[in-house]
């Protein structure tokens, strides 16, 4: 009689997942960037409670105070606490980035999946539309959307979301095309599996890797785009603080009060860098070609 050991019950899929986690955990850069992002998310969620001052508390006698004492990041020209404003601005920035990229993922992946799964004229038309969207530089397209709908948070989300939608459509399409010809999909099709089940159970889980990588990198670019739009006065509107606008406001005081420009900028760099590094780490693990290379290198090393 055979006994069933835990190793026997572990499926190939679980083993792949386990080794992916092990590879991720083995890369210190990825681990550090994930921790930094986790801290940033906690800060963003609790910003209102942990901020030592109100974001619009004006205190003119204490204007342009350098960092130190009770104002860790100093104060601006109206005496507002920059540390508190940066915390709340990170929250706004992350919210815009997450919502706009979520919009792009849902719409883009749906379009890409359906186009490549159905193929034919639908695929051709959709992909030509995507090509047209790619001919517009990101910020220019976002500016055009703002010009149509007027400045504001909702417009910023729509602008960034619509700019990144074609990217996700293209990634989803390319990955679906390679998965569609796999034997397990063909077999499943001959067994009469329904389209929705096929897309949800067989295609989507197998194209998740590149999509997760693209999501991380897009979040980085979405934060940069939001900062640029807010810098131009077209994104998040005052009195709500935004990192981009804080940098814009610092321009007149750059020699008098370096901290007004440095801290909001550093907050952007840290957030974007963490998303970029996490994206790179994820790509190394989730992209099969890269992964084989890393594993081979580790074995030979």
């Amino acid at each position, binding site marked *: 009689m055979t006994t069933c050991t835990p190793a026997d019950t572990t499926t190939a899929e679980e083993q792949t997942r386990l080794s992916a986690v092990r590879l991720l955990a083995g890369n210190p850069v990825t681990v550090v960037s994930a921790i930094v992002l986790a801290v940033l998310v906690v800060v963003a969620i609790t910003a209102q409670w942990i901020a030592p001052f109100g974001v619009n508390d004006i205190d003119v006698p204490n204007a342009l105070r350098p960092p130190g004492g009770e104002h860790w990041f100093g104060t601006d020209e109206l005496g507002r606490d920059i540390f508190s404003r940066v915390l709340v601005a990170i929250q706004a920035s992350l919210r815009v980035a997450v919502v706009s990229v979520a919009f792009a993922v849902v719409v883009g992946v749906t379009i890409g999946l359906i186009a490549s799964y159905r193929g034919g004229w639908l695929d051709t038309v959709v992909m*030509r*539309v995507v*090509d*047209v*969207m790619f*001919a*517009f*530089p*990101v*910020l*220019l397209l976002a*500016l*055009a959307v*703002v*010009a*149509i*709908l007027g400045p504001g948070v909702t417009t910023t989300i729509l602008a960034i979301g619509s700019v990144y939608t074609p990217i996700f459509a293209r990634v989803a399409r390319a990955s679906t095309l390679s998965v569609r010809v796999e034997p397990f999909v063909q077999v499943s099709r001959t067994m009469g599996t329904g389209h929705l089940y096929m897309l949800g159970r067989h295609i989507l889980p197998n194209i998740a890797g590149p999509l997760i990588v693209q999501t991380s990198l897009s979040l*980085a670019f979405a934060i*940069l785009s939001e*900062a*640029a739009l807010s*810098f*131009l*006065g*077209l994104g998040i509107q005052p009195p709500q603080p935004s990192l*981009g606008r804080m*940098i*814009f406001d*610092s*321009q007149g005081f*750059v*020699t008098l009060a*370096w901290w007004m*420009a*440095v801290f909001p*900028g550093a907050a*952007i*760099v840290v957030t*974007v*860098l963490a998303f*970029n*590094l996490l994206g*790179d780490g994820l790509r190394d693990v989730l992209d099969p070609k890269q992964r084989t290379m890393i594993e081979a290198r580790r074995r030979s090393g």
Partner: protein
Amino acid sequence: MTRLGRSPVLVTNPVVRFLARRLLYSIVVLIGVLVVVFALVHVVPGDPVRIALGTRYTPQAYDALRSASGMDRPLIEQFFGYMGSALTGDLGVSFRNGDPVTVTLLERLPATVSLAFVGIVIALLIALPAGIWSALHEGRASDAIVRVTSQFGVSIPDFWMGILLIALFASTLHWLPTSGYRPLFDDPAGWLRHVILPGLTVGLVAAAIMTRYIRSAVLEVAAMGYVRTARSKGLPPRVVTMRHTVRNAAIPVLTITGIQLATILGGVIVVEVVFAWPGLGRLVYNAVAARDYPVIQGAVLLIAALFLLINLIVDALYAVVDPRIRLS
């Protein structure tokens, strides 16, 4: 398959066939771009003419602007009218000051092109040596330094870098002007002094992106069989690097340079605003603030067309540089 004329020599020439296919593709995309640009004004919630007039609104001004911009005509007529005019170089008149959009765009173009050119030269001067060095020293400390630095560069907002550069080189050291522009042909020395800081801002960000691409392009080529063969037959490392590795990595490098140049042309909006650089970017920014739709449409169309043109030129160079395309 695309057929270009009846000459059998032309039709069978793979380069011509390749370029004809790319040209046709660019034209299709350009028509799509025209449709999007036309639609821009028509998806504005409310009446764009009324919005553009703002506080200057009077019934007379409204009627005059509406008829001057052709917005009183049926939609389909407006569409074909716009397509026809755009293809002949007429992009309408500004809602704000009545100037022809094409003339305004052409006035602004040299400033943006000169900034983009300086930016891409700075980017190549940094990215080429850094990317090649990093790839040839893969896994060593110098590779790690280049990778970390370029990752930082990709994550820095260009406007922030611009402000920091102004703070250091203009406001503190007084070496260079904080902002402004001099035309290249009127005052070359003045142009150079004014272009350095915005050029550096654009160039450093582009360099960070390009270094990563160049590094991976060289690494990919270095893993090829013919490089191993060249090394195993005893060629000096310098010859293998220059003749076999770097030369073959030129094609992806060419592509990324083209893409970056196109990206800079359309993406310098914020840098132009920071440095008060009177190019296309600042024009778009001011037009968005003033809801000057014809100017926005014209600038978006011009930048998208430039993007397609640069891609087409890169494709043509591809065919010249890469024998695989020439001979396939």
